[in-house]
């Protein structure tokens, strides 16, 4: 009874917010997108997917030929989950619709980390949801190999509205790589992705997300993370390819003592791309810590790089580092770091810098025999290098590969 009531409440809240613009980013007319797409066949063996699709997925770190480096796989094409599997005990990977049927308690996690009425995009996901994934590690299980998830957009003008739930039970460890991409380099589309993370006591989750859209696609992820005592959430976000407009501001709430949240973002905006990307950490428990690092590069597009740390408990500590590089053209980088401290005994800091490549650094490398082009490439590569603690080597390599694959677009 309670379930039905609560879901009715969510629908009411969603309806009330269905025209509410987001706090940030350009407004999108949802009526110019369609909500339905053809059903896709289920693939028991994902390596049987068409070669061109597999290639697109590989670019965002989703490996379908020989999945022995992944502990689980989930693929959704448009609105249909076409594959889910696991290769390890102690984890679950399935379509969220299937998980809702299987576990009646799952509705307790619905809209707890993200507010359904936050804006028209969250509302639209509630009112017209097209699945998503459910990933869970059971208490005490530690995965070394990552779970991979792919949200794939093939149909033009589709609004892909997914709702993902990720639960890491007490003392478990979970690594996820999510690749979001399109089948084609052209054609408009909209991706609305709600992701709610629940990181229980002592659990650790790393979430590596690689986006590879096209110049006509708009993207509005809505992510919330709740971290309990001694829990760790580590997010790595990479977008190196053109997109029409992307706006997101994931928010992590540390609700248990000594919870830790780290965000690393590497953003590249080509001409015509508009990125508004932030990371927020709300430190509500004693001793919680956060570090937010972003690297923004424009070769002609516009980037708003936001960051926010809020300290609401004793002995919390946070640092925000936001650096931007304007390489060429008429691009803009707007860095907006925010700190909010609500009591004594907290330690929050930030540093932000936006500029061009320092000529002094180019000369230093040229004096060692590098050409100007080689020197510039070396400096840009260094700029994008974010040493990520706690990430398995396969994922570090995956990120590095995605960065390097885009180097020629930058130069």
């Amino acid at each position: 009874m309670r379930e039905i009531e609560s879901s009715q409440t969510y629908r009411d809240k969603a309806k009330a917010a269905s025209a509410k613009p987001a706090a940030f980013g350009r407004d999108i007319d949802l009526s110019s997108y369609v909500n339905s797409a053809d059903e896709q066949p289920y693939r028991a063996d994902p390596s049987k997917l068409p070669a061109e699709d597999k290639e697109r997925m590989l670019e965002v770190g989703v490996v379908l030929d020989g999945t022995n480096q992944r502990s689980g796989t989930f693929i959704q094409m448009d609105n249909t989950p076409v594959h889910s599997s696991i290769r390890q005990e102690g984890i679950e990977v399935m379509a969220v619709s299937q998980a809702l049927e299987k576990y009646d308690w799952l509705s307790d996690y619905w809209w707890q980390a993200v507010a359904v009425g936050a804006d028209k995009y969250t509302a639209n996901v509630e009112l017209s949801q097209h699945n998503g994934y459910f990933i869970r590690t059971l208490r005490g299980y530690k995965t070394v190999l990552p779970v991979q998830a792919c949200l794939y957009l093939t149909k033009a003008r589709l609004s892909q509205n997914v709702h993902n739930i990720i639960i890491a039970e007490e003392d478990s460890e979970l690594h996820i790589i999510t690749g979001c991409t399109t089948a084609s380099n052209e054609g408009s589309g909209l991706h609305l992705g709600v992701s709610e993370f629940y990181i229980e006591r002592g659990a650790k989750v790393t979430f590596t997300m690689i986006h590879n859209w096209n110049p006509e696609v708009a993207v509005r992820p809505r992510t919330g993370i709740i971290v309990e005592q001694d829990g760790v959430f580590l997010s790595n976000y990479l977008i190196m390819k053109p997109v029409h407009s992307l706006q997101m501001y994931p928010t992590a709430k540390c609700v248990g003592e000594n919870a830790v949240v780290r965000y690393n973002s590497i953003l590249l905006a080509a001409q015509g791309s508009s990125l508004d990307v932030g990371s927020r950490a709300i430190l509500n428990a004693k001793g919680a810590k956060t570090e937010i690092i972003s690297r923004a590069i424009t070769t002609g597009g516009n980037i708003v790089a936001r960051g926010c740390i809020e300290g609401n408990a004793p002995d919390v500590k946070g640092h925000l580092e936001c650096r931007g590089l304007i390489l060429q053209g008429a691009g803009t980088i707007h860095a907006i770091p925010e700190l909010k401290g609500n009591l004594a005994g907290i330690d929050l800091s930030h540093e932000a810098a936006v500029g061009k490549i320092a000529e002094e650094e180019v000369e230093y490398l040229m004096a060692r025999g590098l050409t100007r082009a080689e020197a510039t490439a070396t400096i840009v590569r260094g700029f994008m290098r974010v040493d990520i603690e706690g990430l398995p080597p396969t994922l570090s390599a995956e990120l590095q590969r995605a960065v390097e694959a885009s180097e020629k677009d930058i130069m």
Partner: protein
Amino acid sequence: MGVSMSETILSIKKLTVRVEDREILHNINLEIQSGETHVLFGPNGSGKSTLLMAIMGFPRYQISKGNIIFKGMDITMLPMDERARLGIGISFQRPPVVRGVRTHDMVAACLRGREKEQSISRLAGKADLADFLDREINYGFSGGEIKRSEMMQLLAQSPDLVLLDEPESGVDLVNIALIGELINELLEKNCRIRDRKHAGLIITHTGHILNYVNARTGYVMIDGKISCGGDPHEILATIKEKGYEECAKCVK
């Protein structure tokens, strides 16, 4: 009888250098044979560093007259990176931090693929920087660490002409002996004189480096002109005794 013919590695002819709108060096002439080390004395602001920068080819240092001939080739108009690839190397006094670029990457860049990975750790061992290879270049380095890192990069680059700007400045006594050793290796001082190919031009304010590195010739630079040349120890003794005022008289 193998008395090798020394060849002129660097020949500077009537060189005039401007920085922005100011002429800093006036009509400089200088010649260095391969295998030789020369030192350059002079008060602060006399133009010593400008000469090194102009030889290396930093764009800010504009050559308005004269020529720089390196290994028989006129390099006056060549960009800096080409000069580096031809065999000129310089140590930076205050090198920039390049974020995300590790010391290892810099050494590898200096090697330009000539040698294998193991030579990087060998060089780091020599410069006592084994723990620095994974660190961002120059980030949080002390004065001595910067000097050693510059020497390590130059050893990897192995230039025929080494330009060193006050290698002893800001270095404590423990470090200076090691830096002296690294310079001697760079200049092939361990080889027989006739087998040496690498040449050096070293700026020294205090002359202290002469306790560690032998040099054949010394010059004094005053107000953008070379006032004299001769035995470096003799010049140093004169400067210590009478100061640069004595040298200034010679320029007039």
